[in-house]
Structure formats: structure tokens, C-alpha cells
């Protein structure tokens, strides 16, 4: 069974698809065995801190070892492997002066549309790389590929989030240019991706005004772990009963340091300050 999504059969393998190239590539990351196990000994995580509790009753040499119990004090983070690889990704991004953004939201908030618009408007100034995460299809990557920027689609199968290992693989495949912007569109899900550091510089949570104002307190972990909140579809304000200030109040309650952008990826309203933010982030 795989570490990432618990999949246990090939039908649930994670697929990496390079939609720019001709060849559709199925890297079997989850071909349990080599790939997953290969990183686990990077850091000798000092087990056996002490053997004080090993009750080794060696009465004779018949070796009753397996009847004895042994206590292993681990004190180990459950997600240590993800965190370890996330740190590696982070180092890679830093060395290459890449600014990486993890875009998270519930499905349908307009992540891909915002990404399309952003790329279309800025691609002459900024060099983009995109990693698209979805359970199935290359629809999103196809939309990005149409803008002629490097993109990899990760299909997570039944997995509900991206993890740092998938990003490490995808990044290798993309071989991004120094000083470029790495946009990682996570699987549409406001819960699970919040626990998995990908090594990104910032996490951006997107919420559209067709959702409830109280979403930040319904799904606080995602808002707690993000640095930026983009409020999308503001062109629909006249038609909806939606109070943006109320949404912001809720979001600030969860995370008082959140920085907001109110935009419409459709009309372009409010995008200027988002773009300035991106340019500034890339320079610093």
C-alpha cells in the first residue's frame, strides 16, 4: 500500500502526464517498492535511543528473541517523510530562485481560470511552470498547455491531495528555469491538502463568492495554513447576497495575518494588485 494515498492496486496509480510533449507518460510513482522506499533512509532517524527496556532473557542460546518484547521510543512525526521531501523541494526552489505557490481551494472556486488569466496576462514578463493536480483527466493541464507554458498533470487517482514526493517528481520532469514562478494547483479540496507541505513558498487559498461567507470557520485549517486569500468571482457581487467584509472577518478570525486580493478572473477586475504581488514575490 502506498504512503501517499493508501492505494493498493495499480488502478489507483498516480500518473504524471506531460501534456506539452507528444508522449503521455505514466510514471508509476506508486509502484510501491523502489520509489517510495528509496528515500526513507536519508536521515538515520535514531531509533533505539536506549535499549533500557529490552528484556532480553537469554537463559540459553536457543534464541527466544522473538518472544521478548522491545520498546522503541520513536518520537517521530507521522508525516516526517512528506516534511523531509518538502524541505528538499524548498531547497531546490531556493537554489534556483524559483517562487513556488500552492493554490488550494474547494472545487469550482476558479483556480484554473485564475491561473489561465494570470499566465495569459503575465507570460511575457514572467516565466511560468505549472503543476496541475486532479484525481482524473488532463483537462486542466490542457487548458494551461494551450497558453504554451510548461505544465505537468498529476492524476492522483483516489488520492485527495498532492504531496511533496509528487512535486519532487513533477519538478524533475519540468526542469524549471532559474527565476521562474512555479504554480502548483492542488486537488480541489478544502480539507486534506492543508496537512501536506509541498515545499512551496506560500500557500494561496482561493474562495469564490458563490460559496458561503463562513467557509473560513467551517474549514479553518486551510485558512490557518495559508498566507494569501484570493476572493474570486467578484463580478457576480450584484447578483448575490454575499458580504465580502463578513468573509474577511471570518477569515481573519482564523488567520489574522492573511493578505487578501479581491478579483474576478473573468473580467480582470482586481488582478493588477495580485500581479504586482507576484512580481514582487519573484524579485525578493
Amino acid at each position, binding site marked *: 500500500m502506498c504512503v501517499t494515498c493508501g492505494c493498493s492496486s495499480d488502478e489507483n496509480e498516480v500518473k504524471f502526464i506531460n501534456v506539452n510533449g507528444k508522449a503521455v507518460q505514466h510514471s508509476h510513482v506508486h509502484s510501491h517498492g523502489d520509489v517510495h522506499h528509496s528515500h526513507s533512509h536519508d536521515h538515520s532517524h535514531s531509533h533505539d535511543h536506549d535499549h533500557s527496556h529490552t528484556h532480553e532473557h537469554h537463559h540459553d542460546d536457543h534464541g527466544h*528473541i*522473538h518472544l521478548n518484547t*522491545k520498546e522503541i*521510543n520513536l*518520537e517521530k512525526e507521522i508525516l516526517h517523510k512528506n516534511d523531509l521531501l518538502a524541505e528538499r523541494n524548498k531547497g531546490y526552489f531556493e537554489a534556483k530562485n524559483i517562487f513556488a505557490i500552492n493554490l488550494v481551494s474547494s472545487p469550482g472556486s476558479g483556480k484554473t481560470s485564475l491561473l489561465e488569466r494570470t499566465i495569459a496576462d503575465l507570460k511575457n514578463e514572467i516565466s511560468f511552470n505549472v503543476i496541475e493536480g486532479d484525481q482524473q483527466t488532463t483537462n486542466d493541464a490542457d487548458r494551461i498547455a494551450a497558453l504554451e507554458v510548461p505544465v505537468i498533470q498529476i492524476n492522483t487517482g483516489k488520492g485527495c*491531495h498532492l504531496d511533496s514526493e509528487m512535486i519532487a517528481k513533477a519538478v524533475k520532469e519540468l526542469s524549471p528555469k532559474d527565476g521562474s514562478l512555479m504554480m502548483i494547483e492542488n486537488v480541489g479540496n478544502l480539507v486534506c491538502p492543508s*496537512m501536506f507541505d509541498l515545499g512551496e513558498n506560500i500557500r494561496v487559498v482561493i474562495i469564490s463568492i458563490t460559496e458561503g461567507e463562513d467557509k473560513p470557520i467551517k474549514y*479553518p485549517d486551510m485558512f490557518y495554513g495559508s498566507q494569501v486569500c484570493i476572493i474570486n468571482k467578484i463580478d457576480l457581487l450584484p447578483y448575490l447576497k454575499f458580504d465580502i467584509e463578513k468573509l474577511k472577518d471570518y477569515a481573519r478570525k482564523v488567520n489574522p495575518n492573511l493578505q487578501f486580493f479581491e478579483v474576478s478572473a473573468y473580467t480582470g477586475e482586481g488582478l493588477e494588485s495580485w500581479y504586482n504581488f507576484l512580481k514582487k514575490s519573484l524579485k525578493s
Partner: protein
Amino acid sequence: MHELSIVTSIIKTAEKEVENSIGGKVLEIYLEIGKLSGVEIQSLHFVWELSANGTVLQDSKVIITEPEGKAKCAECETEYLVEKIYDSCPKCNSPFKSIISGKELKIKKLIIN
């Protein structure tokens, strides 16, 4: 259902530890899962049943401690219990705080034989 990822990660770690040690099975596993960690214990148990079968954790006793959420107010330094991650300081009402416990997600120890 990220609990699945959590459980499979625990299983991997346990298998490795057992393999590196005296072999055998895990009799008891001690986990620390804070109340603010974002993991639903019920979901975890549910996934556990399905995932642990055939691994070193099959039939292991699972002991979970759940540290309370606690924060220290960044304004008035009051320490207070946090039930929801967005609870504000009960004294000065400030939302600015640092979480001091409740985010734990750890394997504390294994008893194997």
C-alpha cells in the same frame, strides 16, 4: 480522507522499525494526535481496520493520546485552551496567538516482539 495517508504513513514507519529491529510484530503502538491536528480519530480507526491487516500492525493495541489545543495570546500573553483553531483570547479578545499544543502528529513509541 487524509486519514488514509496518515495511517499508511504510520504503517510504513512501523514496518521499517520492526524490520530494523528484532523483527516480529507490533504489540502496542503509542500515538500522539493533537486535537488541532486536523485528524479525525474516528476516521483514523476506520481506516486502521482496513489498512493494518497483513502488516506488522495487525492486531496491535493502539493507544492514542490527544493533547488539548492550547495557545498563548500574542498581545497579552494569556495562555488559554483552544477548541477551534480560530478561538480568540478570552481575556483581550485578540485573534493573534501562537499554538503551543494540539498540533501534535507523532508516533511516540512501539512495543514489538
